[in-house]
């Protein structure tokens, strides 16, 4: 598939070889010279060793998705070379350590080796500097600079900035490692500029991953309490909240298990603090019972489920969208809930804030679905995004008997037209009240009266209708009446959107209908959009087409084609385009 003015650098090696920080350096450099970047990672579920890769996609036009291509491979071990040999693009470049890779690599491409080879003794040079391999990665990045035709100034600045806190010595050693690496490459290899992409005019952006976007949004929304039990890939969200807890007055408590985590969260929310808990599917499984507690006690609750490959322990470090139906129906009995699935960093930042508002306004649990891919990918977050666009709305809160007006005894579960009962917090002056998980009357007293039961169920369920005005319709990206509509939800958003352009190259007019408000559906606003679709394909990171099932059940809509992926990896725009071209046109 034809290349835009962009390329992908892959750094491959073992966990512990520092490839993540190399990725950061390269991303920073690109950003500094005005280029767009998108960074994603692939690693196994073990601590040291294994095969880890960080991909840095760089372009002079905005990019928001991973692509299946390697233009430049920095191989930190011999194994990486084996694994990726066939993936390195024609005319791509392999950058490797002469002393580590025993295999014969030729400088120029040939039949058996379709790419260039640039071998530099990363470790030897480093040892030359301080008898350790500590600076080998710096040498490798410098080599990349030579290959890309980038000048070293920016890199030097960043090294300076990064290490001067530590010591000037370390800065100097890095600089000399950088210089020596560059010079070695320069002396031994003629320049190969496969890409003339050394600067750009990128609109200013932050490069943050989904966990940061979500954590920052939660902080903005005023989260004051979070409890969680470690679980990949949800933990980073908690870590960010913990890291900033003192500054923002947050208590971040590691609990003894996920049951405790969600129960503490419900308790804190009942007491009036905006509270959040998060886990992946396995931990969410243990939160199921307390989800229902929030439902019947009408306690606002926000839960993030960062999905990974299932079932059970499954693929702990791989991505998947297979918990949709699970979270939608989790817990016994019936109560209203909201399920959201943000599709990128900006949506993560904003929808987590909306989640807290929805939870407060309608006094119910809100589940935010994200996944390993979103959690760990560094995405473009435009600097001109209005960080204060969403203001806090806590809904009806009674703070004292006075506010009740009159001397009526406060009824926590007052029957109201819209199903939302004015909420008081424990500690409110002159007010005491009961609430609980048993079916109850308006005063929260245990009540098994069949008539009260029906009224109370209806009151709770009514909230699903009441909130509909707050539920937007799916967003359309691309031509409004395209020949084919790609339906995405959550993290498949941008792979689908980028496919539009690839399809355009084949004169196919495509657009994307993206769902990030999953449940409840605003059927009135959504049905017409679905009815307008000419041809369609749905794109889901799961094996059973869970979202398609919802479209069938709620809209009687059946996509013509369904593209399901469940090998643990995210979608690539070109694989989507290929399938559409091969199977639908």
């Amino acid at each position, binding site marked *: 598939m034809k290349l835009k003015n962009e390329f992908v650098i892959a750094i491959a090696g073992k966990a512990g070889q520092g490839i993540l920080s190399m990725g950061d350096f390269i991303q920073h450099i690109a950003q500094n010279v005005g280029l767009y970047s998108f960074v994603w990672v692939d690693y196994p579920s073990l601590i040291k060793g294994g095969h880890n890769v960080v991909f840095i996609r760089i372009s002079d036009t905005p990019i928001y998705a991973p692509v299946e291509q390697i233009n430049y491979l920095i191989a930190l071990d011999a194994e990486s070379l084996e694994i990726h040999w066939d993936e390195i693009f024609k005319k791509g470049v392999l950058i490797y350590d002469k002393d580590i890779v025993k295999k014969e690599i030729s400088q120029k491409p040939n039949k058996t080796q379709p790419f260039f080879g640039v071998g530099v003794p990363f470790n030897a040079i480093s040892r030359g500097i301080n008898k350790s391999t500590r600076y080998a990665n710096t040498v490798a990045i410098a080599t990349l600079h030579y290959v890309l035709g980038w000048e070293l100034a920016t890199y030097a600045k960043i090294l300076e900035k990064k290490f001067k806190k530590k010591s000037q010595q370390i800065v100097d050693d890095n600089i000399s490692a950088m210089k020596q690496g560059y010079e070695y490459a320069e002396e031994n290899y003629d320049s190969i500029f496969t890409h003339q992409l050394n600067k750009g005019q990128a609109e200013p952006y932050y490069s943050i991953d989904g966990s940061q976007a979500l954590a920052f949004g939660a902080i903005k929304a005023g989260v004051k309490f979070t409890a969680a039990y470690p679980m990949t890939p949800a933990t980073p969200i908690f870590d960010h909240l913990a890291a900033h807890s*003192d500054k923002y007055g947050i208590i971040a*408590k590691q609990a003894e298990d996920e049951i405790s985590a969600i129960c503490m969260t419900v*308790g804190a929310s009942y007491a009036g603090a905006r509270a959040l808990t998060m886990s992946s599917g396995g931990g969410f499984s243990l939160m199921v019972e307390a989800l229902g507690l929030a439902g019947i006690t009408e306690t606002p609750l926000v839960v993030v489920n960062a999905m990974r490959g299932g079932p059970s322990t499954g693929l702990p470090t791989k991505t998947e969208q297979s918990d949709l139906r699970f979270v939608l129906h989790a817990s016994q009995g019936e109560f209203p809930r909201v399920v959201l699935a943000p599709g990128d960093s900006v949506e993560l930042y904003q929808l987590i804030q909306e989640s807290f508002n929805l939870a407060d306004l309608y006094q119910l649990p809100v589940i935010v679905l994200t996944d390993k891919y979103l959690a760990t990918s560094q995405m473009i977050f435009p600097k001109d995004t209005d960080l204060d666009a969403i203001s806090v709305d806590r809904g009806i809160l009674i703070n004292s008997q006075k506010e009740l007006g009159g001397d009526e005894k406060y*009824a926590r579960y007052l029957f109201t037209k819209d199903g939302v009962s004015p909420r008081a*917090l424990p500690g409110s002056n002159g007010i005491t009240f*009961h609430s609980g998980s048993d079916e109850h009357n308006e005063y929260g007293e245990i009540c098994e009266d069949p008539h009260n039961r029906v009224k109370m169920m209806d009151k709770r369920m009514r909230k699903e209708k009441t909130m509909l005005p707050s539920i937007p319709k799916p967003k359309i990206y691309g031509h409004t009446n395209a020949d084919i509509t790609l339906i995405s939800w959550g993290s498949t958003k941008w792979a689908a959107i980028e496919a539009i352009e690839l399809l355009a190259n084949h004169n196919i007019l495509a657009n994307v209908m993206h769902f990030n408000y999953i449940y409840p559906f605003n059927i009135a606003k959504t049905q017409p959009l679905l009815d307008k679709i000419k041809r369609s394909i749905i794109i889901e990171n799961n094996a059973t087409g869970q979202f398609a099932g919802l479209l069938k059940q709620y809209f009687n809509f059946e996509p013509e084609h369904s593209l399901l992926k469940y090998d643990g990896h995210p979608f690539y725009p070109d694989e989507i385009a290929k399938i559409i071209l091969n199977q639908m046109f």
Partner: protein
Amino acid sequence: MKPKKDLSSHYTQSTPNWCPGCGNYGIWVSLKNALQELKLPAHKVVLVGDIGCSGKLAYWTDYNGFGSLHGRSIPIAEGVKIANSDLTVIVVGGDGGLLGEGLQHFLHACRRNVNIAVVLHNNQVYGLTTGQTSPTSDPGYQSSTTPEGSYETPLNPSLLALTAQATFVSASFAGNTPHLTQTIKSAILHPGFALVDIYQPCVTYNYINTYEYYSKRVYDITTTPYKPDNRFRAMKKSMEIEGGEKFPIGILYQDESRPSLQDNIQNRVAPLVKQSINNITVKSLFEQD
């Protein structure tokens, strides 16, 4: 204030409906007395009830009550207390919920030294589910789930709490409301996690551990030279019950020196529910990256 609208029906459990003679009445009275004597304003007290006969108590006082989940009352109470430290937070629950379903929460709350009082209605049986064997049931206890008699050794709540380094560990008897009232008061006043393990007769299902059974065996440790200032000695004392003949009641152990969860967090963050959340700025978070 006006009384509640009359919603009472044959189907509403507005007032205590424990079996006549149930030990829970004694706990109910003692807890209310303790709170009254402490002059705590009703709106500043939250009772978190576990699910069980015991936990229903949370619905049956004029203080705030939250009926939670079986076994989960402790972590919920922890969340309430951490969010609003002005509240006095008390857990009322049974031996099944707190030592079976939720044992892990009980022990981790001890080591966390979170500022809540746990009122353990220990009737050595699962009451509300009609009499099954509980984690504190005597060896050989027969029930529908253990027709052959239980062959698991009972758990010792006070010893467990001490093992997990709880800073206030006490025992009392539902049949001795003055003693129980005093003990609950001390537990509420304790700056940290406090356990009150209460021998509570279940007159309907437990024919072994009756009022008479306990009355014969409990003794007030303040009538002995015992001092509650040594954890190891407290362990030894708490193990007396394992013989099944002597049940020391009173404060077995108290350590006010160990910092509570409250002590550990209050110097770092303002009370959570008191913070304004309207105009929080996060730009710096994006920038620092």
